[in-house]
Structure formats: C-alpha cells, structure tokens
C-alpha cells in the first residue's frame, strides 16, 4: 500500500531569479489502487504539478512524500524506483522495436551494461501483456499508430514497476476508440496492479467515467479533490470552467454550448429521441419550456408539430423555420 502526499506544496517556474507561482499550499493525498484524473483549464498547472511530482521540476516550496520518503532528497536512481511517467513528447528511436522500448523501463534494475536478466524479460513481457501489445513486440516503434505507441509508453512505465505512474495527457492526439481504450486500460491497471495512476486530461466525460478520483485544478482556488459525482453535485465543474459560451451539463457530464435561445417550444414523448431532439432545437435557438404555444410530440418513429407529422430532424427544423416566417416570434 503506497501513499503519495504533498505538504504545503508550491509549484511554478523559476526564471531569471523571479518565481512564477502557479499553485500554492497544496496539501494532497493519494492512496494506491486509484485512477486519479487531473482536470483543469489551460494554465491551471496540470503539467507543472505532474512534472514536479515526477521530479523533473523543483517545487518552489513544500514537500512531496512518497510512503513518507521526501522525494527531493531521493537520488535520481531512487526516484526512478518510485515514480515512472509518460510524457507528451514523442519518442522516436531509429531501429528500436516495441520490446526494446519497454525494456527501457528496466533500466533502474539492470547492470551497467544494461543486460536484461530473466526476471527483467519476464516483467517486460508482463507489461506488454497488460497493454495487450505482446503480439507486436518485434514491430518497430516508428511503424506504430499513435494509439499503439501510447500503449507502448504505458508498458514502459509499467515495466519500471513503480508504485506511482504519472501520465500527461495520455489521450491527446488519439481518436475516440483509442481514447476510450487507453482510459479503460488505465482504470483496469490501477485496480489490478494497486498502483497510484495520476493522469491529466482534457477529456472531461472520459475522466468522469474512468477516474476513481478527480483532482479539479483552478487557477485561483487550488485543487479540489473528490469522487467525480460528488464534484458534479457540488457544482464545482461549473465554477472552475465558468464561461458565458458553455456550461457543464450535469445531465451528461459534458460541456454544452450556451446557444442564444429566442424561441420557446414544449416537447414531450420518447426519451432517447427526446434528448437528441432537444439538442437540435437548442442549436436552432429554441428553449424547451413546460407550456409554450408551440408543441412538439416525439413518437417512436416521427415528430408531430401542429398536427403535421415529419419523419426526420431536418424536416422538423424546416417546418419550424416555415412557421417562423409566417408567425415571427
């Protein structure tokens, strides 16, 4: 059971003698077996926090403790035994295959020549199995797709066998199936391996589904920690991502756009089709209200507007347009 904690941690950059503080006095605590999603607007310090915990950036003040050990006082080698990470930078090594790449994770364990022992090979293979890349271990890294490459980098971090794995935007540049795949994989790994997995992401809906805990970072208010649903109920997302042009939709865990809504319409009927109909209406500038003179009924196969039956959303929107020309609101 591992614990990562910070005490009065102040993070930021030092440049030419001046300190640019991004977050201050962070007191955080994480226990093993959890997938933690680090979420926040650009500039709130997600990457800075990850780089600080990774030991790539010195904190301006405060402590980071890993199982009670002061991270800053650890040697480079001891750090490598405690924290591994996956960064956003793309690694391209001529001639290196997947197995070679994952073997890098065994660096802190093998001898000065870098020879892999039987155990090292076993760990590398296990890591490859965990990310389901074992059948591709002799493929060249340069030939992999972005999603496969990300899996390989995760396997490298797994092979390093550390209690903590940090990932900076692991789903950036990936298509939807790969994003979901990587998130599911990390969720599973956190639970099966008992590691602390901390990742930063912009994919709010995915993070809310996959993460056990959310660290919600805002520029001024520090970090709020909690189970995703509790943060939804407390309205934290809307506070952190406050904006006029969109709002955090508690109904689906996504950001919805604030359209200028001029018309009013009351809608009823089939549930799934109702959801999508409301989206289309909002885009067209109609707010759904209880009692409006304009009524739409959504049935299993059609829409009924003013006793007229239409069979697609396009037709429905056309019909509404026609009504507006005749009865401008």
């Amino acid at each position, binding site marked *: 059971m591992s614990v990562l904690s910070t005490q009065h941690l102040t993070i930021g950059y030092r440049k030419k003698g001046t300190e640019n503080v991004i977050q201050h006095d962070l007191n955080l605590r994480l226990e093993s077996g959890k997938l933690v999603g680090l979420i926040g607007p650009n500039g709130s310090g997600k990457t800075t926090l990850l780089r600080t915990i990774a030991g790539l950036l010195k904190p301006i003040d405060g402590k980071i403790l890993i199982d009670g050990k002061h991270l800053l006082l650890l040697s480079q080698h001891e750090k490598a035994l405690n924290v591994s990470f996956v960064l956003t*930078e793309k690694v391209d090594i*001529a001639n290196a295959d997947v197995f070679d790449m994952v073997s*890098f994770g065994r660096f802190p364990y*093998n001898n000065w020549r870098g020879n892999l022992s039987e155990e090292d090979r076993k760990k590398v293979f296990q890591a490859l199995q965990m990310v389901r890349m074992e059948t591709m271990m002799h493929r060249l890294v340069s030939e992999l797709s972005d999603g496969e490459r990300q899996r390989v980098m995760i396997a490298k971090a797994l092979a390093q066998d550390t209690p903590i794995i940090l990932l900076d935007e692991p789903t950036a540049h990936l298509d939807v199936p790969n994003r979901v795949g990587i998130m599911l994989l990390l969720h599973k790994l956190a639970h099966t391996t008992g590691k602390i997995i901390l990742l930063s992401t912009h994919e709010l809906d995915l993070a809310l589904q996959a993460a056990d805990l959310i660290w919600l970072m805002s520029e001024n208010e520090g970090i709020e920690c909690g189970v995703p649903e509790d943060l939804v109920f407390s309205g934290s997302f809307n506070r952190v991502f406050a904006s006029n042009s969109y709002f955090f939709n508690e109904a689906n865990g996504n950001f919805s756009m604030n359209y200028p809504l001029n018309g009013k319409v009351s809608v009823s009927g089939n549930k799934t089709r109702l959801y999508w109909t409301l989206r289309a209406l909002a885009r067209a500038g109609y707010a759904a209200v209880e009692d409006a003179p304009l009524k739409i009924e959504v049935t299993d196969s059609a829409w009924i507007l003013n006793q007229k039956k239409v069979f697609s959303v396009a037709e429905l929107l056309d019909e509404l347009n026609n009504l507006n020309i005749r009865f401008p609101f």
Partner: protein
Amino acid sequence: MYSRNNLLFFVFSLLVIFLFLADLMWGSVAIPAKEIFSAFCGDRQNSVFTEIIINFRLPKAITAILAGASLSVAGLMMQTLFRNPLADPYILGVSSGASLGTALVVMASGFLPFSFAGNCWALIISAVIGAALVLLIVLFVSFRVNDIVSLLIVGIMFGTIAAALVSIIQNFSNPDAIKLFLMWTFGSLSAVTWNYLQILFPVVLAGIGMAFFLQKRLDGLLLGENYARGLGISITQTRSLIILATGLLAGGITAFTGPIAFVGVAVPHIARGIFRTSSHKILLPACILVGAALLMICDIITQIPDYTLPVNTISALFGAPVIIWIILRRK
C-alpha cells in the same frame, strides 16, 4: 537477432584484418605479402622493405584504425547526445576547436620563453581542451535551437570563428611555425610516428573505454532528457562524461592527424543500417570496426601510384553524400 549480429561482427573483423594487411602491402612501393610476414618475424633480408613497413606503414595503418574508430565513436556519442543525426566532431566545429588548440601550441609557442611545439603532450592536451570547449558551447547553444539544421549552421559558424582565430595567430607567427601548422592541417595519417602513437594510443583507449562504460546511459539518452532522468540517469554527470570522452577521441586524433572530415557522421549511420539496432552495446563495437575499415579504405585510395592525396578529401567523398541523404530523408 544476436546470431546475425555475431556473424556481422565476425565478417567485419575479418574485413578489418584484410584491409590492415592490404594497407601494409600497397603504397608508392608495392610490397609482397611474403615480405610483410618476414618483416614481422624479424627476418632482415630486405632491410628497405622492413624499414618501410615497421617505421612507416605499420604506424600509419594503426593510426588509420585508431582514427577511424575514434572519430566514429565520437560521432555516435555526439549524435546521441544532441539527438541529431547530423552531429559529428567535424561538422559541429569540434575539430576546429582542436585546430585552434593546436595552432596555439604550434605557433604561439614562438612567443613563449620555452619551446612547447616539440612536446606531444602539450599538443594533445591543448587539442583535447579546444575540442571539449567547442562541444560545451555547442551543447549550450543546442538547448536554444532545437532544429537540427540550425545547429549544423551554428557548428559551421564555430568552425569559421576558430579558423579566423587561427588566421590571426598565423599573422603573428614566424614562417617556420606556419609551415609546421599548414602541414598539420592537410590531415595526414603518416605524420603519426611510433613516438606519437605511444601517446595517442592510451588517449584513444581511455576515450573508447569511457564510451563503453557509458553505453547504457547513452541508450537512455535516446529517449530524451526527461525520460532519461525518469529512468534514474543523472543527466549533468552523463553529459559531462560524454563531452570528456568525445573531446579525448576527437581532440586526440585531430591533434596528430589534422582534421578528417565526415567519418564521424557517416559511420554511425552505416553501422545502424547494417546492424539494425539502436543499442550502443552493439553500435559501439560496430562503429569501431566500420570506422576502422572505412578509414583504411580511404588510406588505401590515397596511395594511388604516383600521387598521394590527403586522406581528408577521400573521406569527404564518402561522408558528404551521407549528409545529403539524411537531410533528404527527413523531409
């Protein structure tokens, strides 16, 4: 994979031995293999041949091996350090730094109360310091320019600055010293005598030994500085050691043979292409063998009958196209 590499190592070792013998045989005077054998056995039947082989061709062939191996290993380490396929002691101005160091010793020693020029150690130490200094400066610049071609231009500029400084020194030197220095700049493997080899050999051995000691960290650096740090590699220490090793190899060789162009950039690429690996455990010995073979081939070509070409021109013929190929392939 390992058996394939073992076979390749065997083939290249044979090639190096074969080229070594060929290098001894061919030259302005063709010497039959039998005479080479008898010269080694101490059989002094033909004392002219023995003299040529023992005191001229043998040190030259050994120098070719040392220079080819050293420049290639230096090039490999620089390509890994800068994560730049075009890095090489000659291109990034390291050889120019060594020239400047040498020029200071050869020519400026005229101003000094005691004679410095005849001292091999002074020559090699100043060349190594010159090489390492330029490396440090280029490394510093490489933090600011990430683009590989820009770094190339910066390297060429350092070479130009060093050349300008050398010209200034020349202006204030006496004609004898200038002649001595000009001879050096032509780049010659035959200038290295047994006396010089006694110094060059341990320097090269130290540099290559350090490279082998650093092989795992060099592998780690391929991932980039941040990932390397994450694997427990101390970046500052590793960088310093690589610069020292590269300075010893490139500076040491340049001090005695003059600048030899493009071997350092071409050989690591040839080795990667043939051995199909990124691991320095294999690439280091591969570069030693391929580099030694390539420079001996260059040396054999320079000795076409009646004319003796500078080795620098022949190595450029091999190396420059490799650079063009790399730049074209990256687009």
